[in-house]
């Protein structure tokens, strides 16, 4: 790490969880607990019933966990990592959401991302959009 990067990291560390960021961290935290505990329980007890669905829920939980950690940590590197993960999350929600509608037989049981996250008040599809908006906005503030 060069000295310039270190400077950016120290001056911006806490910026990502101020203002609307705190709401994002809260919602992501809720989704981490929801997705991880749900998939953990299902994989432990009835994995054979719907392996694809439960694995996807577990992946969603890991992605949520990483985004939460990045937001809390703050700094430019974490911000970029969070942008990438939010984009991946959005793609995941859209692909899995479409997939569950087009071919329901592949999913004997629901995932966190089924039907675009309808079982979770559509939070899974709304969250990455608002997070990407917030992360772009924080970058502008950092530069301006």
């Amino acid at each position, binding site marked *: 790490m060069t000295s310039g990067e270190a400077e950016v990291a120290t001056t911006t560390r806490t910026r990502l969880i101020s*203002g*609307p960021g*705190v*709401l994002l961290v*809260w919602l992501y*935290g809720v989704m981490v*607990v929801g997705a991880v*505990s749900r998939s953990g*329980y299902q994989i432990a*007890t009835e994995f054979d019933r719907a392996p694809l669905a439960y694995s996807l829920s577990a992946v969603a939980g890991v992605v949520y966990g990483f985004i939460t950690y990045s937001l809390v940590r703050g700094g430019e590197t974490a911000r970029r990592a969070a942008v990438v993960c939010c984009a991946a999350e959005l793609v995941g929600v859209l692909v899995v959401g479409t997939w569950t509608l087009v071919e329901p037989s592949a999913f004997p049981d629901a995932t966190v991302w089924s039907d675009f996250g309808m079982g979770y008040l559509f939070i899974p599809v709304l969250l990455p959009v608002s997070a990407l908006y917030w992360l772009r906005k924080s970058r502008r503030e950092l530069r301006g």
Partner: protein
Amino acid sequence: MLDALTLATGVAALLLAAWCGWAAYRDQPTKDWHFIGMAVVSVLALVQLVVGVVQLARGEKPEQGTTIFVAYLLGAFACIPAAGFMSLAERTRWGSVTVAAGGVVLAVLEVRLYDIWGG
């Protein structure tokens, strides 16, 4: 007993959400009165946790499984305190929004708890 508590906690959580949403609308952070409200809702969730565990100990079985039931009871209890601490760290309207979101999340958990218990 448990169903009545579930209903009471859910309604209290929605009231808390509306109250903190109102504070956010008026551009205010959470204040002492809001924290008292959060404490009331948290106590309700704690009583629910205790009653739920007592009913399990008496041998009653939730319809959708004991593990899920206990996990939701714990989640419901932790929900508002966690949001409250985040609003302590964020002394703007966004802290109020976070507690409001916490109230909505708790209300959803209560609906799920009702289903899981099989009421």
